[in-house]
């Protein structure tokens, strides 16, 4: 049984290969500490992240989702992240509208040089998801 006091959230992080993933790598090799709650899924671009992946992750019981890509203007594919930004703006607003806590699904821009910032963001997201507690909405229970 999971003990409520030492419950740790599980967070899926979709990281763009060209920036945030390398940023995470940099945080690693620089030995910057950050919470070990994230499970990384490497994607070629933040634009590759279908909103369905996020909903599916929630359905499968992850407590939080983070999508992180290159800063606007720095996308390896020029505008993948800018198109993604539109999709995510709608998705985030819609999920909140139907009553899913806004902290559960988050988006960020982290470059390959920002190891420290990557650690900070993970810290922040993990803290927020922890406060929300285990996910109940949307989860598929058998």
């Amino acid at each position, binding site marked *: 049984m999971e003990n409520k006091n030492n419950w740790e959230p599980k967070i899926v992080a979709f990281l763009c290969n060209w920036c945030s993933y390398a940023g995470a790598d940099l945080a690693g090799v620089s030995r910057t500490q950050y919470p070990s709650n994230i499970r990384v899924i490497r994607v070629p671009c933040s634009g590759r992240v279908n*909103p*369905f992946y996020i*909903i*599916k992750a929630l*359905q499968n019981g992850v407590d939080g989702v*983070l999508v992180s890509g290159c800063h*606007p*203007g720095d996308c390896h594919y020029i*505008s993948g992240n*800018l*198109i993604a*930004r*539109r*999709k*995510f*703006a*709608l*998705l*985030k*607003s*819609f*999920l*909140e*509208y*139907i*009553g*899913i*806590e806004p902290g559960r699904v*988050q*988006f*960020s*821009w982290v470059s390959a040089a920002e190891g420290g*910032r990557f650690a*900070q*963001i993970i810290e*922040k*997201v993990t803290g927020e998801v922890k406060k929300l507690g285990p996910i109940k*909405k*949307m*989860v*598929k*229970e*058998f």
Partner: protein
Amino acid sequence: MIEKIKEVVKKLFKEDKIDIFIGYGEGTLPLRTTPCFITGPDNIEKLVWNSYCFNNLAVYLPRFFLPQLQKKDLKFPRIGILAKGCDGRSIVGLIKEHQIPRENLYIIGINCSGMIDIEKVQNAVYKMQEVEIVSAKEKSGKVLVENEDNKKVELKKEELLAEVCKNCQYTAPLIYDVLIGEEKRKTKEKERAAFIKEFEKKPLEERWKYFQEQVSKCIRCYACRQACPNCYCKECFADQTRPKWIGATENISDIMFFQIGRILHQAGRCVDCGACVRACPMGIDLRIFTYKLIEDVKEFFGYEAGISLEEAPPLATFKPDDKQEFITEP
């Protein structure tokens, strides 16, 4: 109006401008019409125009222009279609998404005076569905209905209008070949989004409860999808097996996935025609969710569906300074 419509259709056939005309025909039940496909000048008399022509006819168009038909060297037909404001906007969407060629269409735009919500008639006269309505007649803003016991009731059309029609913003299509009908009907279009604002004010948990309540009624019959002109996908995500997005279960989480998925797929495309709501046999309040996306798309990207043929669809483009307050530490 119907005489004018028939006249135009007759002329179109006579001048050999169209092969098929899509309009409305008499329904088999009172208060209903059925889509009517006319293939020659002889059947034009079948056409009707009344306050029950609520189907969005655009839904029938994509199937005439499937790429495999062209591959077989079959020529695409030239189609004439009757279009209310909402149908017209759906047609624009389909042209923009390259599902139907503009040059094969002859759009008879009609300035719509609003369609009646059958449920409102039933609720106004009797307790719903307890008594059958055997006939309905329309005359100058009044609807006269008669039930099986010969009880007659006269109702004002205005009070029976469907929710989507009450505050309709575009009563006539913006893109058409001819336009029939008087001037634009006055509607309370400013109040359109009031119900969204109202819902947004509710606490998070209450909103979730409502979403859950509505979704739990869904039997996944997919009628909402079938009725929607935007849902022309050859294989809908709901039917896909690789990846399998939705389990073949009654689990509410799977139903939620379908609902969220379908509604998100309407982003920047939904014209608020109400076809999905009418098609739903479970009376689910789908509009409160689809309309939220209409509002957001307008607010975030300044875009409205079905208005222009030139403007790029909102999710196929971007602006460098698009809204990004939602990003964690931007």
